[in-house]
């Protein structure tokens, strides 16, 4: 059995005052190899918790994650992770960062060198490979993070708002890069985002989650990611279905946010 199964996951955090928070309740998903899924939802809907469980940083209180037929017990190189920022190692050069995974496996330069250089080419950082991390712009740093993740050849790539800290222009370029990498490598990708547009563009499947308890609200299957590969993303946004879908999801999230606000006001 291949692919990634998220099997009836529930996550409950106990609070020091005796209460508890149901961060996730009965979340089930089935991802095939090569799926590109974006996850949207108002804050507090448990999307980052879900990602941390899939990555193996947290154990769910109920349910299990199964990847390629075996249960996930902890973090592993088969599930690569791209963080919003701050995950690169400042004491290493760009190239050393990208080569980190292979080096941890005990490979030497002759084994990983070619692939690392190829990946640096793919993300357009060949000229910067000897630079220090703090000499790079935010967008370049995220390209290093992508390349570092790919150098390990993981089965699944988990992205936690990878483009959230970038300015609008850089973000658009990076979205193109993510689509390109997805198509070229055929990896399964789960991408968490706050931006509805990004979720539409980078989600073959788009998952909208609802808060309290965190659960799946609705899933979409969208054509935009496929259209966006190698194309101008601004052209994709002109597609006749794009704007209506965006409005539908936006108002869905707005309703959830208002419901949260209402609830907090009641309790206050």
């Amino acid at each position, binding site marked *: 059995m291949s692919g990634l199964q998220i099997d009836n996951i529930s996550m409950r955090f106990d609070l020091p005052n005796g209460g508890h928070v149901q961060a996730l309740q009965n979340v089930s998903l089935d991802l095939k190899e090569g799926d590109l899924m974006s996850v949207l939802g108002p804050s507090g809907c448990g999307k980052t918790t879900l990602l941390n469980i899939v990555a193996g*940083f947290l154990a769910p209180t109920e349910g299990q994650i199964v990847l390629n037929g075996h249960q996930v017990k902890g973090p592993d*190189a088969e599930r690569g992770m791209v*963080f919003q920022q701050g*995950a690169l190692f400042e004491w290493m050069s760009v190239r050393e960062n990208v080569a*980190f*995974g292979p080096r941890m496996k005990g490979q030497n330069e002759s084994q990983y060198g070619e692939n690392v250089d190829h990946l640096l080419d793919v993300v357009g950082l060949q000229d910067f490979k000897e630079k220090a991390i703090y000499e790079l712009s935010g967008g370049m740093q995220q390209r290093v993070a992508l390349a570092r993740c790919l150098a390990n050849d993981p089965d699944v790539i988990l992205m936690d708002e990878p483009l959230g800290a970038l300015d609008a222009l850089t973000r658009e370029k990076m979205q193109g890069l993510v689509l390109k990498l997805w198509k070229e490598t055929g990896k399964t990708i789960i991408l968490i985002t706050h931006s509805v547009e990004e979720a539409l563009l980078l989600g073959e499947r788009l998952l909208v989650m609802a808060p309290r308890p965190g659960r799946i609200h609705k899933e979409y299957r969208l054509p935009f990611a496929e259209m966006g590969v190698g194309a101008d993303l601004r052209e994709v946004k002109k597609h006749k279905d794009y704007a209506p879908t965006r409005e539908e999801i936006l108002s869905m999230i707005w309703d959830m946010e208002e419901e949260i606000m209402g609830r907090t006001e009641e309790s206050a």
Partner: protein
Amino acid sequence: MTGILILLTYVAIFVVTWVVVTAVVGRALQGFNALKTVTFGDESAVTPNRSASIISVLTLFLIWGAFTGSALLPSFLHAPGPFKGDTQFTYTAEDGDGNRDDAIVFARVAEVGTDVEDPVAEGADEGFAKNDVVVAGAWRSELIRVDRNDEIGRDAGHKVVAINGEPIEPGGRVKIADGEVGMTPKGTLNFIPAKGLQMEPIWLPSPEAVWQRFLNVSTEGYQNFTLLEHLGYSLFRVVLGFLFGALVGIPLGYAMGLSGWFRGWFDPIVEFMRPVPPLALIPLVIIWAGIGESGKIILLFLAALWIMTIAARAGVSGVNITKVHAAYSLGASKWQLMRHVIMPNSLPEIFTGARVAMGVCWGTVVAAELVAAEVGAGMMIMVASRFQLTDIVIMGIILIGIIGFGIDILMRMAEKKLVPWKGRS
């Protein structure tokens, strides 16, 4: 009095050079800062004015030289020195019957420690009071029993009633041309030559005297050890004590940052020992280990240990959790995480701790040597102070300062080289 004058001189030089330099050079802002219109309150626009730094150091030496009569300065810059040379004053004596007679005291004032001939009494000398001669040292005073050579002694009712015509009583003082004449409760005259505003060398030697002493001590040594040995021993103790402290403290700090048992076990010890000043441990260390090398090194080890432990612990605690997560999901093992993420990530904190520890160790070693040692920079100045060798004391203080500053500069250079990413992530 002199202190206030020195302070006023200092403030005057500060203000005058500020006004003059600003007028000559113009506003000190350069480059982009020169284009800023809002500079007052903008910290980034405040850069140290290097001419001010140079003038500041020169001023210190100028004041030092001026108030010690330094030969490095032209004499018109000197503060008035003590009176030296010949002077004289008249005293009026009264015998038991109320008869009065005047006589002259010829005084010669010279530097202490030089051979001086007695001045010669000149002129007519009639009546029962006879002229006296006296030799006094500059900055000192001299008691004069004027009645000794007079025809009537003190026991026969002789007493001095006036100096230069001004009445004087026991305990009183009268100003004369080049100083003062006082009278003790028993009626003895006390000649106090004018001290001027300069400092006496036993309180503050001139810069060139300190320099001379430096050359002298560096070739001949002091208290059985050469200057290099004194400083070298102090440095050796600091380096060794610090190294031991770091060798134990850093692994201990890592263990406390990574294991709850270690943190729980050592927290009370570290938190208790941290606020104990290392100087407070000196007596105990001397009781246990004596005043030799081992005692000093144990003391410095203890001074460095807690600082390095806390720095290493903070370095581990400061690692961003996303870096740890990233390393694990890239396939790193616990040991690899330690080696490739936690250790390099804690280097900036450890360097900060090392700089603090080196500073504390340097201060502690000097203090420990002040208390008891056979050799060392602190011992050198302590022994010198007992013999009033103020020039060695000042030389020692300057050298201790230079070495302490040098250590910090070296640490900063090493930091820049080894942790270039500090403060940039």
